[in-house]
């Protein structure tokens, strides 16, 4: 698992990258009540706002962690947004991306570096 400073996790699955938010992020957001997912087959650039996530407290965005194409989204989150709090690093993945070169993941944080970030 790799991590971004925006509290996203990335997991390689075959030739795709699965993206979600960390336990820390889910706790900070509080109870998630609404998730708006991107369209599949959308080309995105690093930093694009691709997901809207609303908790009881506020709206937040999930940013595209890499350049690439959104090839799958987790529709389960639309019906059960609470899954984000229940299983943020498992069942509550947000989207899958296809990227040109998986080696760019090497630049992201590993688990120890992320743990240092959130202290």
């Amino acid at each position, binding site marked *: 698992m790799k991590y971004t400073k925006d509290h996203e996790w990335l997991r390689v699955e075959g030739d795709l990258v699965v993206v979600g938010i960390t336990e820390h992020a889910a706790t900070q957001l*509080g*109870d998630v*009540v*609404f998730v*708006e997912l991107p369209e599949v087959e959308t080309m995105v650039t690093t930093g694009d706002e691709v997901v*809207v996530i*609303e*908790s*009881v*407290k*506020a*709206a937040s965005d999930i940013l595209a962690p890499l350049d690439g194409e959104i090839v799958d989204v987790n529709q389960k989150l639309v019906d059960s*947004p609470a899954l984000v709090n229940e299983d943020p690093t498992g069942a509550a993945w947000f989207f899958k991306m296809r990227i040109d070169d998986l080696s760019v993941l090497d630049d992201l944080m590993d688990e120890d570096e992320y743990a240092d970030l959130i202290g």
Partner: protein
Amino acid sequence: MSGLLRLPLHDLHVELGGKIVGFAGYDMPVQYPLGVMGEHLHTRAKAGLFDVSHMGQILAYPTGNIEELALDLERLMPIDVAGLAPWRQRYGVLTNDTGGILDDLMIAHRGDHFLIVVNAACKAADFDHLQAHLRCANLTMCSDRALLALQGPQAEAALAQILRGVGAMRFMDVRIFGDIWVSRSGYTGEDGFEISIPNTQVAVFARSLLAMQGVAPIGLGARDSLRLEAGMPLYGHDIDQTTSPVEAGLAWAISKTRRAGGARAGGFAGAARILAQLSSGVSRLRVGLRPDSRAPMREGVVLLDGNAPIGRITSGGFSPTLNAPISMGYLPLKFTEIGTLIAGDLRGKPTPLRVCALPFHPTNYKR
């Protein structure tokens, strides 16, 4: 250093795992480990303990007699103060000369004086306003007192274990138990109490309440979602110096006796505009709104009729009780009928909402 003031219960909030944020100049717990949703539902089902010590508690003693002071206060608010019975309290608003709202408040008649409880962010300005305009009052800001709210269907059972006699109080009754001042009121739509207590005693008192079955600490997050469900306006958001009480849907608080034809009609700040609105109607009104989709629409969202902006959401969020988003905002009168379909500009996308009745969730007072 945050430069924020600390509540007398600060250490207890931290010990309970409260997440502390700045609010109205104070370090306040926005939520505890239970979370906003859990705290909200707990309050509706059992009893929630809120620390609202940031609010202003102003004692107003008459320099002469209390009847004279009541009439003096009526010059600053469009409510019936003179007719307020001893040991009863009433909701009111301080108005400005153009009929806007300086603050909303509770005023309690306590035999030989009044207690006025005001919003934290306005308390210094309110005190100055009262000081400047009242002719026969001695005012004191009770900075040595904390304020707790215990709200929910199990509030009475819990509080009665410490203060026997609270069970006999009805909604909006006030009583003094030694150093402790109690009113049967709140800001959640539930039955419950607001309890003023010296700073030096509040920690022990709060701990004994929290030790009781069914009582949990509740943060500002759930306080906001509870009051939103109850359809209550939040000062600085849903009401302010530009909104009149009639536009804000608070005409119910303007006593008959202060209206045209009443025994003490008018004579309050902003009376010209407010009385005219009561007789000829308003051009805009605060309404409840239910988004069709599950996306919450929050403060600042522009309301649309087609592409034309017609108003703005002043409060909005997610209702844990309804399991759906809810909002409030101002709309021109012709859009205010229940069921009217409009849209909100949500991140650039017109998103449908329908006008609905307030409150979103029925109140549960002990009358």
